[in-house]
């Protein structure tokens, strides 16, 4: 059964709050001395939660699979529902996260500018926050 708008927005806000909490923790990881593996992993999940928040608010179906979320990100951007296309970033962050899962962080991870990553995530959270707010006002 289709969810009511109220339920969808409630779900969206829950995911957005989780995304903000994860961003907050990722930001701490980006401070010196950096924890790049922790920062990238938390940013990845935060992006995913923000994306799910947008999908829930718009009433768009989503799945739990990471690669399908990247497809969803591309679709929402192409449909002009989201201003930023995070699909490639999601794939890249997932790759980096998996590289770490095998053991020690690799060379690619050490080359990432964590402050930029966290800052771009903050902008995306702002964009999704505005989207959810605008739907609440409708």
């Amino acid at each position, binding site marked *: 059964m289709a969810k009511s708008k109220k339920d969808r927005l409630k779900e969206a806000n829950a995911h957005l709050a*989780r995304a903000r909490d994860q961003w907050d923790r990722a*930001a701490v990881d980006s*401070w*010196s001395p950096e*924890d790049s593996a*922790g920062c990238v992993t*938390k940013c990845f999940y935060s992006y995913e939660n923000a994306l799910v928040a947008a999908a829930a608010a718009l009433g768009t179906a989503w799945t739990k699979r*990471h690669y399908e979320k990247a497809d969803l990100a591309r679709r929402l951007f192409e449909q002009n529902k989201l201003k930023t296309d995070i699909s490639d970033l999601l794939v890249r962050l*997932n790759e980096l996260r998996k590289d770490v899962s095998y053991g020690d962080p690799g060379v690619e991870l050490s080359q990432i500018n964590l402050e930029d990553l966290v800052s771009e995530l903050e902008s995306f959270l702002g964009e999704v926050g505005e989207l959810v707010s605008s739907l609440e006002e409708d």
Partner: protein
Amino acid sequence: MLAEPTYTSLTQDFVREVSSANKEMQISVILIGSVARSTHTSKSDLDLLVISDRPPVVARHPDRLHVQALTAQQFAERLRAGDDFAAWCVRYGVPIVTAQPWLDIVNSAEAAIWPDWHNKVRHAARRLTLAAALLETGDLAAAGEEMLYAASHTARAILLKARIFPLSRPEIIGQLREANHGRLAKILEDLSYQEPTKGALTRDLLYVKRLLVFIDRPVYREFVQLRRQHLLAKKNHSSSLASSGNGRSPVQDR
């Protein structure tokens, strides 16, 4: 699960791409992970290792394909450092394309080095910390994934310490049972095939932490102390920024 022809065509497409992008290089492509062991599940990706004489160019690949690209020198260094991933690739990797650098590695003395299981304790402790942080945010799916990594690293530490080489993740469950680690086997099985609950994840976290302390107390203690030092350094760093800035510490803001 991806159909077998899909795995085959993904591999063939990748081999074509990587070969044409690195024409002057000696490239080897090795099938690794659960697909190489024919134990893949619905969640399994196709994992490939690329080994070359010089840093290779590896283009963006489909999302279900996970590629690790290393030079032969980097790979040999990992073997020497007792890295279990590299040792796994040498023992169980299935070559799709073979060039001389890979053959040299397989026949080298480094190929026979037994992985350092202490490393796995460090890796497990790191993932456990991440799982705990994600659980605090209420993201059960994310915490479950990180917990699965933590439990897998812990399982590998236990097996390597007992001189049993850990196979693919689905096979490790059976290896653990045979080594009388039924509870960790159950945790791995549940995390692999079921939706995690908050209660189960909390119990798993505590159990795996206890196991890590039991397996290697000095290394676990060293990890915890290092983490405390890191957090303290962050706090001091942010305090000094705050005293020279707006007077508010980012740590206090959290």
